[in-house]
């Protein structure tokens, strides 16, 4: 891996972040309804003076390019402003919400990607047998069932089966590890199923491809065991599309997390940004979306690096 390759990727990353910052800044301001009106609400004493005072306090009376310059200038120095509603620094609000979302996404990737390899490998080897058909049907179902529906149905099911088991809300791992994991089971399941289904199908076809190659026949001929042929020779070559897919899936997971957090009442980034959008909490929306974008871009940066490790030809 050359430094030039690394530097090129980093510059790409900076461009993406800059573009997203402009997009986010404009989008939240272009939708109708503004923060001041929503803050003053429908049932309060609205006078032009109060509106002007609030706008001034929030810096919303300045021209848009000036507002953007203020914001991006602060952001580059690590100051993302304060939440319009609570007055707390935006970074603090994000820090308190990032934990649950990170845990949820991390566990979903772990379970989804982890299980998809053995399942995909099994489907490739047992092609056409009854059990494989069943798994394949399951995979298609997993791809098509929306996670909010799956989430609600699974809550309903578990609450009937095991009444009294707490599965809603969130407890930090550091406070109650068991309670934390117990509450994570259903959301992780609902979140990772589409990813698991997608990746298993991908692993299956990549493996089928790889298993038909000459070098597999050679490996078999030289007397390598079945396990060794599948996992050592075929899998490594099937891994490249797999890694790409995992990287892209992280984006979907972050999107899916919004829905799943909503259903399971988890106080994560998804809830934070949804609330912020409906309140027109500009600084909070901007910073949260930048954070999520950064995470997504970072994951794909790491995926790029992984390619280079798996297949050195990529860097050339």
């Amino acid at each position: 891996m050359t430094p030039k390759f690394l530097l090129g990727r980093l510059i790409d990353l900076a461009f993406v972040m800059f573009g997203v910052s402009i997009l986010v800044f404009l989008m939240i301001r272009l939708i109708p309804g503004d923060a001041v009106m929503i803050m003053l609400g429908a049932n309060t004493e609205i006078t032009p003076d109060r509106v002007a005072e609030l706008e001034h306090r929030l810096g919303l009376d300045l021209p848009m390019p000036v507002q953007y310059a203020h914001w991006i200038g602060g952001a580059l120095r690590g100051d993302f402003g304060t939440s319009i509603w609570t007055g707390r620094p935006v970074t603090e609000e994000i820090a308190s919400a990032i934990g649950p979302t990170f845990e949820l996404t991390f566990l979903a990737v772990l379970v989804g990607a982890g299980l998809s390899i053995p399942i995909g490998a099994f489907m490739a080897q047992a092609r056409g047998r009854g059990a494989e058909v069943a798994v394949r049907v399951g995979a298609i179902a997993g791809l098509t069932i929306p996670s909010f529906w799956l989430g609600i149905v699974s809550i309903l099911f578990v609450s009937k089966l095991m009444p009294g088991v707490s599965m809603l809300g969130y407890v930090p791992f550091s406070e109650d590890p068991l309670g934390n994991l117990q509450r994570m089971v259903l959301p992780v399941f609902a979140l990772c199923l589409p990813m698991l289904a997608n990746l298993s199908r991908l692993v299956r076809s990549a493996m089928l491809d790889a298993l038909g190659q000459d070098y597999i026949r050679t490996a078999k001929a030289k007397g390598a065991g079945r396990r060794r042929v599948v996992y050592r020779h075929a899998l490594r070559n099937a891994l490249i599309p797999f890694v790409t897919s995992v990287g892209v899936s992280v984006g979907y997971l972050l999107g899916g997390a919004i829905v799943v957090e909503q259903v399971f009442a988890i106080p994560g980034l998804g809830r934070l940004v949804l609330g912020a959008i409906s309140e027109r909490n500009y600084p909070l929306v901007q910073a949260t979306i930048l954070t999520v974008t950064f995470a997504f871009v970072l994951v794909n940066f790491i995926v790029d690096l992984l390619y280079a490790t798996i297949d050195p030809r990529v860097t050339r």
Partner: protein
Amino acid sequence: MTKHRFAALLASTFLASAATAATLDIAVDTAPAGLDPHLITAFNSVLIVQGNIYQGLTDIDPGLAVQPGLATSWDISEDGLTYTFHLASGVTFHDGSTFDAEDAAASLRRVQSPETASPLASRISPVVGIEVVDPLTLKLTLDAPFAPLLSSLAGIAMVPAEMETDKEALQMAPDGTGPFKFADWTPNGYIALEAFDGYRDGKPQIDEVKFHFVPEAATRQIGLVSGEYDMLPAVDPATALQLQGQPGVTLEQTRDLAYTLIGMNVTDPALADPKVREAVNLLLNRDEIIAGALFGAGVPAGPLSPALTEWALPTSDFSCYTPDVDKAKALIAESGVALPIKLRMVVLPRQDAKDIAQIAQQQLAAGGIEVELINQEIGDFVQSWKNSDFGMFVSANGGNPDPDQYFYRTFYTGGSTNVFKYSDARVDDLLDTGRNKTDMAERKAAYDELQVKLACEGPIAHIAYANLTTAVGPKLHGFVIHPMGRLSSLKDAVLDD
């Protein structure tokens, strides 16, 4: 009651060591943006704060009558211009400091100050003099008699005097005199309150009250049935229907003070004519709307909620509440407005409002009024409402225990929430009478005339008072539902293990 309390006390003494703290888990849909009692307007913020953390000088009981609060009694001068309040002694704030007349005076000044910009300011606008007579006596002077004062004071929380000029602190860290004190807040997670040792009527039985923020209605519903939550404070009609008869779930119901309405912009050339507004009322079939949009859980609304038993006239007194398409058409013909009348109707993003809008659209079409429904997101809707950018709108309003609190700002010429641009000299006269006379009979006569006039030709077609439904799990006992949605009865409630 005493016996019951004693038994509970005995039980709690024995079980105290074994049982963990009794926590009441309440699920609500949205998290509050802040908790400053003088700034908040959102239903859920008020629900958490009012009566639990904070109290006012007076209190409103579930029958909507004014009761003593932090003031144990009061004297009103003959001319109705001076109110002398005698405050309860030995009341402490959650921070340990003592509540006295200085705090009360500072709290009222805080609400009145333009710096605070409190939405409650208009509730006590006639108060021009606030005087501390002695530590337990507070004297208020008014510039004109103002009958709703006592009921208005119930909604104004007493805060420590040093908060008078502090606009930030109470948003995140409330400090009141109520039975529960603020303990913990996880953004988007929950707000926890704990029983206050120093509460003047004794520490509540429930150790902790947690308000969980659960945005998804289905999740709240399942959570209540599975025992994860003990209470859902305001349940929509569809969910109430599904919760009916579930094991362990009790539905407490009362007539809601809040109501759904169709607002009409009087600057619209067609709606400017009172005859057309009366025709709109004649075209609307409220029973049909209630059956279709509220699953039958509600009653047709006049301008005042039947929960205000002393004031509200029965809807049978309003001639235009009997649907009559022919009469409506005749009225429109008389007015000279050409058919079809085309109007934009903006709709509050709430299921009941959307359903009402669709039914009303059909009913109005029968009389040649064609409305175009515009579903808006909440920020957008508030903007349209505030800028009077609508022909009609469908919305919901919170109610008030005194007619003046709703009528004056809504129907007075130039009133602060008169987005309809309605102006009628007779209405203004009657509103002044209702506000300035303290004689009950005179007020009643004014509000009776107002209700009849506003019901048919006012800028609002009042649609329905729904049932306010609170779903309670099997563990909670002694909860009493309040028409204003207050949870103040929790201080006397008991929770099973």
